[in-house]
């Protein structure tokens, strides 16, 4: 069956450390993968997109890797801050042009403690 799995347990880390979140999937072949942040009572906010032919993408303190052999993406937040506390969602992307579609994971809750 097709599955997307993110860290099932909430992640608690100390301020200044690197947070690493995982997204594993089975029986999918996504063309790209996206990461979003969601705060309570708000809609998800787009963070990063990585395509199947890319190994790594960076944006400020964020880094995403994508291993299509392992069927895994890792999302890193370096020098974490309490303001990074949120739920992080990965989404597998399919299609192109006008027919793009995302399949979403359940999300991982991250708490950064001061």
């Amino acid at each position, binding site marked *: 069956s097709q599955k997307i799995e993110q860290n099932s347990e909430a992640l608690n880390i100390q301020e200044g450390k690197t947070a690493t979140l995982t997204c594993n999937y089975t029986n999918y072949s996504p063309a790209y993968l996206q990461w979003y942040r969601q705060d309570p009572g708000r*809609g*998800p906010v787009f963070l990063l997109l990585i395509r199947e032919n890319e190994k790594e993408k960076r944006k400020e303190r964020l880094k995403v890797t994508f291993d299509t052999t392992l069927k895994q993406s890792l999302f890193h937040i370096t020098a974490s801050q309490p303001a990074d506390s949120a739920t992080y969602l990965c989404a597998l992307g399919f299609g192109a042009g006008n027919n793009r579609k995302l399949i979403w994971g359940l999300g991982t809750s991250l708490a950064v403690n001061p």
Partner: protein
Amino acid sequence: EAGVAQSPRYKIIEKRQSVAFWCNPISGHATLYWYQQILGQGPKLLIQFQNNGVVDDSQLPKDRFSAERLKGVDSTLKIQPAKLEDSAVYLCASSSLWGEQYFGPGTRLTVT
């Protein structure tokens, strides 16, 4: 640029009543999505529009849910009649050419 607008933000109805949600996407975004998000889960796609045409409505419970995007801009999602299990947040999103989606604040629906 203005973001995705949704209304109302909150709605409480009794089961078997009807409800409608409205969404205005980011200007120029041709693709519009309606999602249902239950607490602790990721968004579940209900329907995807490309301009005013439906691209995917495979997970829309068509016996009670309907959606339209008549002029290819704003959209409405309706539930009639509502069930207890429809209690959730309904998110509207629109996407740019590269596929990243921009979400509205959502409508929290409580069915009692």
